[in-house]
């Protein structure tokens, strides 16, 4: 919040100052990026075969989780939390895969994709409306709607199946032209650029941060708190639909059983990415880096022929270790 306002108040800064300010505002993300660089070097060390080509397979496998983390980040920044994200992904993915199997054809697939995106926004709107109207804590509402969405997904597709249009599959698999640039990464950047960046630069974005950091202060400053909260869930549903579509695109089918780990890892990545669970702090870039870090750790474990289950253990330890260290520093700083 404060970062955004300072930058807006002083549009003409010297480049050096801007870089310094950027570093100050994004210390956590920069640290995480450094960690990612070390991890990449380590990956190359344990697996000399890891090449630029392997980047694209990492990117494809990480895309649904990365989008889930972006979706989660938006709602957490606004002071909420969404436990139904994996159920939303299962439902949108099932609808997409089923419709594409029943109505083949590239042209209809485009219409289906648009319809599924609208469906995702509707699911988010249901969450948002329930949170705003009933005033039940977000965690309880989204917990309950996760049952509802998963139930509807089972109605749509009693068993995993369906199919995906070829262009949709091609969109996320393999490199885009050069090896360094996985298609999945391009898709991710485009989605974030189209959905999040315009929002975060607008009045709406400032409102999102405002209601997350202090709803009462936001209300007194004239921010429409309920409407903004509702919109934050719609945005989460929108990105959640992209996550569901990317699941269909990368697996070629739709599965009605929500992956519980998507909820857990998306929340973990959001917090690891420097977004405060109390709301109002952070962005979507940190969570994206965190998702890649968490995925690379598991991949490295596989390369090192360590029992892959230790990957889960390592993810858990990194999650809580980093957070304990982070809050330890914060506590010491506030005492000093």
């Amino acid at each position, binding site marked *: 919040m404060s970062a955004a306002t300072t930058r807006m108040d002083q549009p003409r800064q010297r480049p050096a100052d801007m870089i310094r300010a950027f570093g100050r505002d994004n210390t956590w993300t920069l640290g995480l990026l450094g960690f990612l660089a070390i991890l990449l070097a380590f990956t190359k060390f344990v697996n000399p075969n890891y090449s630029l080509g392997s980047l694209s397979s990492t990117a494809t496998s990480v895309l649904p989780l990365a989008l889930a983390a972006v979706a989660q980040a938006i709602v957490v920044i606004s002071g909420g939390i969404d436990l139904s994200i994996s159920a939303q992904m299962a439902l949108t993915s099932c609808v997409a895969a089923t419709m594409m199997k029943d109505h083949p054809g590239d042209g209809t697939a485009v219409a289906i994709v648009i319809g599924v995106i609208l469906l995702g926004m509707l699911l988010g709107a249901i969450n948002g409306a329930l949170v705003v109207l009933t005033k039940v804590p977000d965690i309880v509402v989204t917990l309950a709607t996760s049952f509802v969405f998963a139930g509807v997904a*089972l109605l749509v597709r009693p068993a995993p199946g369906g199919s995906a249009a070829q262009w949709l599959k091609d969109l996320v698999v393999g490199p885009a032209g050069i090896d360094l640039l996985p298609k999945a990464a391009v898709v991710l950047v485009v989605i974030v650029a189209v959905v999040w960046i315009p929002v975060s630069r607008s009045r709406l974005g400032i409102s999102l941060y405002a209601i997350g950091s202090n709803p009462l202060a936001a209300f007194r400053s004239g921010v429409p708190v309920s409407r903004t909260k509702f919109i934050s869930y719609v945005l989460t549903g929108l990105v959640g639909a992209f996550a569901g579509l990317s699941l269909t695109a990368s697996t070629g089918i739709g599965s009605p059983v929500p992956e519980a780990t998507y909820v857990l890892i998306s929340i973990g990545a959001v917090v690891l990415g420097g977004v405060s669970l109390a709301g109002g702090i952070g962005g979507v870039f940190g969570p994206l880096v965190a998702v890649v870090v968490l995925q690379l750790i598991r991949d490295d474990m596989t390369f090192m022929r360590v029992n892959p*289950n230790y*990957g889960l253990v390592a993810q858990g330890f990194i999650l809580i270790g980093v957070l304990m260290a982070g809050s330890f520093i914060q506590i010491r700083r506030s005492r000093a």
Partner: protein
Amino acid sequence: MTAATGMARDRAPSRSAAWRNLLRDYPLIPLTILLVLLVLTVELARPGTVSANWAAFTVRQAAILAILAACQTLTMLTGGIDLSIGYIASMAGFVTATFVHQPGGWVFGLVVALTASALAGLVSGIGIGIFRVHPLIMTLGMGLIVFGFSNVWQLQSVQTGAGVPPELRTLGTGLTADVIPNDLAVFVPVAVALILMLRRTGYGRMLYAIGDNPVAARLSGVRSWQVLVVLYVLSAVLAAIAGLLQMGLSNTASVTLVTPYLLPSVAAAVIGGTSIVGGRGGYSGTIVGALILTVLAGFLSIVLPEPWRQIVFGSIVVLVAAAYTRATAAG
């Protein structure tokens, strides 16, 4: 909002306001009415369903859910939540089962399992109490760690094999005199101890105090970190007990046995009137909440296919939670 409340106070309490006060001050009464209505619906929809045997089966399953929901109730009172209990409970059951054919037998396994659970709770408690990591994320990470270790343990113990100890099977499945579930022998002492702890002991009071206003609690001399460390150890041990009972009941040992009960355990505490933001609630409501959910899930599994069951289940949780929020906001 304030205007509406003021008006409600000025007028003689209308019928809906009276209901709201009842729900707020004595949640057990409306909850019990809801439970009775639910049982009546079951009997009306399927005459002959409700019997002594049906009640025994329901109570047997509800007792396990109620112990898991105790973890959520206690942690929610302090404004926290424990998302690691599904994995801890499954791990405790599974580890015990792998020691059946080992020297020392399952009793030794039980000791190992309880120690491991308490250790996991201790680490969570230290993270939450001392390092002030958000409980949601701390227990989430701990759940991943426990799940990973359980999987490793599963691979290591493939050769030795696992089995559910007959004693635990009797405890989990058996009915004394055909109507009294044996697992009540575990549940009743636990429930009585928890209710007494929350109502009569200083420790119980401190849980409410921390949840209601952490700063005020600290200024009144509550050492929050000690309370929280003990709390999360207690929660993990309770989860382990529930896991052992569930293993006995289902006669299977698996590292994901109890994970499907994580969300219902939160729902049972919420339906039972415990506030997720802390400071308000109690265990007796949670027990009725667990009974309601078990009766509901059992009934829905008879009359509805799986998808609709989930949809109705989720909708009812939202409705009941909304009713509570209205009741508590109006006062």
